[in-house]
């Protein structure tokens, strides 16, 4: 029987966060197979199994900081009987729901550093015994003690053999423990985890179409001309409306896919609107139940989301209820974008910036503003024909902007 534990991926790593299992109980694994993804301060890292056999039990909660050495799974050798009772201590906390982490809460410090697993192959010689004069302490604890100005001789250790671990140092520190995580870095980590998961688990396929948006732009120009700023509508709101109407008709693009239950189409269309943040990062909060919104309500909802995204005041529900995402490059910039689906969603509409191009209208070449739409869709749920239908519905909706 092998116990798969949170590995140490460097001397400064005290804990990691289990973000994904690539195996389930009953699966056969070979030595070296990637079976889990752990997020560390260095990003998402694939973890290989050291054992071959059958996965018997996954014992650790997802999305929580787990000290190095925490048992994560039990792997039985071929033909081995499962042991009676729980084989590994299950962490007490409830597993967090698997939502997209955008703003991570401050992580709790690990309470103790458990014993590292013995290496599979014994090393040539045992490590030299610690001289009595030097208190045993983990490298991270020493580093932190230096930063906090904590004298290790006065610290009692709770680690193996009384070794001082990071948590002991922080308990002994006179002031606040570890600094608040850098939100930009945390955001980067969250994006990395979500996008890595998307690219690893979603078989993306893409369909593109270039659309003449002159009718829509003319409509907005005329509509906005005599309106005060608060009542003006942007092209982006037309795109969101067109997406919502298309998603309501092509249900394979609107919903959530999970490993456990497959695709669940959503009755509501909750369009997530990708918003780039200065200093890096991206959020995609969603409007709720947008099918019956007017164009004006859609626009005002988007304005509200953008304002609150800038102020850092988005709600958790907005971060998780999206059923399809719209990512638009705005009014200037690149002409096309092939986006990564935001799991557990199954489609993303990528829109390039409008470009003036020669276009054929009624047999004549005329200058037109065109936008390239690229639909990224999940092949577990739909095929190209449905994606083409979605694009066609989007195009139809955009052709009659006054009806949006």
């Amino acid at each position, binding site marked *: 029987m092998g116990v798969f534990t949170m590995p140490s991926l460097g001397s400064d790593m005290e804990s990691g966060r289990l973000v994904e299992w690539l195996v389930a109980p009953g699966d056969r694994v070979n030595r070296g197979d990637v079976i889990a993804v752990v997020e560390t301060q260095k990003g998402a890292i694939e973890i290989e199994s050291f054992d071959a056999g059958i996965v018997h039990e996954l014992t650790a909660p997802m999305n929580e900081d787990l000290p190095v050495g925490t048992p994560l799974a039990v792997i039985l050798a071929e033909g081995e009987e499962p042991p009676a009772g729980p084989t590994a201590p299950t962490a007490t906390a409830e597993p967090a729901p698997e939502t997209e982490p955008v703003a991570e809460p401050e992580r709790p410090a690990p309470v103790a550093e458990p014993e590292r697993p013995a290496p599979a192959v014994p090393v040539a010689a045992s490590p030299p015994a610690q001289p009595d004069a030097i208190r045993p302490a983990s490298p991270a604890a020493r580093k932190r003690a230096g930063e906090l100005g904590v004298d290790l001789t006065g610290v009692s250790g709770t680690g193996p053999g009384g070794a001082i671990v990071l948590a002991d140092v922080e308990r002994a520190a006179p002031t606040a423990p570890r600094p608040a995580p850098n939100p930009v870095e945390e955001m980067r980590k969250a994006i990395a985890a979500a996008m890595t998961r998307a690219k690893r688990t979603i078989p993306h396929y893409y369909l593109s179409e270039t659309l003449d948006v002159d009718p829509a732009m003319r409509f907005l120009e005329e509509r906005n001309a005599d309106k*005060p700023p608060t009542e*003006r509508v942007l092209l982006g709101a037309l795109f969101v409306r067109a997406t919502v109407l298309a998603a309501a008709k092509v249900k394979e693009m609107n919903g959530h896919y999970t490993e456990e239950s497959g695709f669940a189409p959503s009755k509501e269309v909750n369009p997530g609107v990708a918003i780039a943040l200065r200093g890096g990062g991206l959020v995609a909060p969603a409007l709720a139940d947008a099918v019956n919104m007017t164009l004006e309500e859609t626009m005002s909802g988007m304005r509200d989301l953008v304002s609150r995204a800038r102020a850092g005041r988005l709600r958790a529900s907005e971060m998780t209820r999206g059923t399809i995402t719209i990512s638009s490059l705005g009014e200037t910039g690149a002409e096309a974008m092939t986006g990564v689906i935001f799991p557990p969603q199954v489609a993303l509409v990528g829109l390039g910036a409008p470009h003036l191009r020669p276009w054929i209208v009624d047999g004549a070449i005329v200058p037109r503003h065109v936008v390239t739409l690229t639909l990224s869709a999940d092949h577990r749920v739909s095929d190209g024909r449905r994606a083409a239908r979605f694009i066609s519905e989007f195009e139809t909706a955009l052709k009659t902007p006054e009806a949006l």
Partner: protein
Amino acid sequence: MTPEDLRRLFLEELSRIAPDIDPATVADDDHIQDDLELDSMDVLNLVSALHEKLGVDIPEADYPQIATPRLAAAYLAARTGEA
């Protein structure tokens, strides 16, 4: 209001729309979209705020004239009739 007042007000509203921009770090010729990375929704929110504060309704066609703090101060001075 002097152009200097208008410039300060413009920067104040700018940092209200985009709280992560420190007005002290914005140069007079910084472009609000290219340099300060405002998107079209931010620009609309800025225009709305200026409308509310100054009563100046900036039409879409005039947006290029408020693209930098220097341009905006001159434009707003002209529109508020004190140029």
